[in-house]
């Protein structure tokens, strides 16, 4: 198949997304990337699980149904081996998948599985975390390694959670917001990575 050697490990788009060639993206037409997002090798995103019933179908009229399965904001970082899949549930007696919405500056650690309904901005998810179906994670949340977030859990802003099942163990200290910034991490991967500023 390959006519020439691959030009680099990552595909870099015009909007600054860096997508590894070895990532598995299923149903790419239903995955929205906000820009400057890094998708590392072995990441799996299930874009084929789209919602089957539309909310308030009468009011939308002739508008085309939205088929976005996963929407990701800017400066997100999906580490090696993590998996994003839209959550599913029974709605009015019919099974449907819901859109997985992720804000900006969200870090997902290696080997984590995310099936949340929505994740706010500036969220840090550690390694080997399982985020259950239809969980809602607000802004500035830190989830430590190995946490199991149960289905339908709502995590308030500025909290630190850990444990199996996840419990609130603390708050993000004042002035600790800069640690969530992922602009520098974005520069350290890609086809010509730059070393992280010390």
């Amino acid at each position, binding site marked *: 198949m*390959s006519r020439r050697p691959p030009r680099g490990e990552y595909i870099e788009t015009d909007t600054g997304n860096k997508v590894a060639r070895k990532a598995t993206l299923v149903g790419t037409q239903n995955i929205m990337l906000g820009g400057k997002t890094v998708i590392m090798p072995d990441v799996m995103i299930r874009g084929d699980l789209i919602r089957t019933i539309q909310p308030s179908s009468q009011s939308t009229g002739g508008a085309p149904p939205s088929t976005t399965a996963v929407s990701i904001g800017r400066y997100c970082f999906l580490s090696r081996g993590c998996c994003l899949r839209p959550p599913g549930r029974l709605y009015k007696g019919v099974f*449907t998948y819901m859109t997985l919405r992720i804000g900006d500056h969200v870090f997902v650690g290696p080997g984590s599985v995310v099936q949340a309904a929505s994740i706010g901005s500036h969220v840090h998810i550690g390694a080997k975390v399982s985020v259950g179906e239809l969980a809602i994670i607000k802004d500035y949340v830190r989830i430590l390694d190995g946490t199991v977030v149960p289905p339908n859990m709502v995590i308030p802003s500025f909290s630190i959670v850990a444990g199996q099942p996840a419990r609130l163990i603390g708050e993000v200290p004042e002035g600790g917001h800069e640690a969530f910034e992922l602009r520098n991490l974005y520069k350290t991967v890609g086809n010509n990575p730059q070393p992280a500023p010390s």
Partner: protein
Amino acid sequence: MSSKRHSILPPVSSGPKPPVHFSSSITIADSAVLTGTHPIAIHSESVVHPRARLDSLAGRLTVGRRCVVHERATLGAIGTSGRITEAAVTLGDYVVVEVGAAIEAGETVIGEGTVVGVGARVGAGAVIGKHCTLTPHTEIAAGEVVPDFTVVFSNGMRRTDKRGVAELKNKGLARQIDVLRRMIPSNPAKFA
């Protein structure tokens, strides 16, 4: 599904192609991986997601009716024992194996209606009862017997599920399978 681009990567599937016994009503994704030498049987209306791995190198695999095997789940992983048995892994009806879970080979039996959570691991020869729930990242030791209706937590705690919602759960799963059949392009001919 119209823009079909071909990957430059070599195909993931490696090793021998196992003999398969598929029901005509199953849904199996194109990128599922089936390897091994022993037969793999999948009964009616079951769903196998992309990149799920079914390995029959250590014995026969049987997947019951209306089961769902999610992506990256492994059935028949060669565990520590590595011995070849008659029936490596047997899944009952209505079994859900979630993302990244691994079920080791060696007379392992999962009972009807059981949910194996995200990233859980079931050791070789373990027998899980009916309608059990293994929460994410649970580890079941090799040869362990888990009674019916047990909920196993990842910190080792256990309790009995007395809610009596087994019937409802099965109904919900049937609805989910109906949706998945329309979403996952099935290609059983590839494995035949």
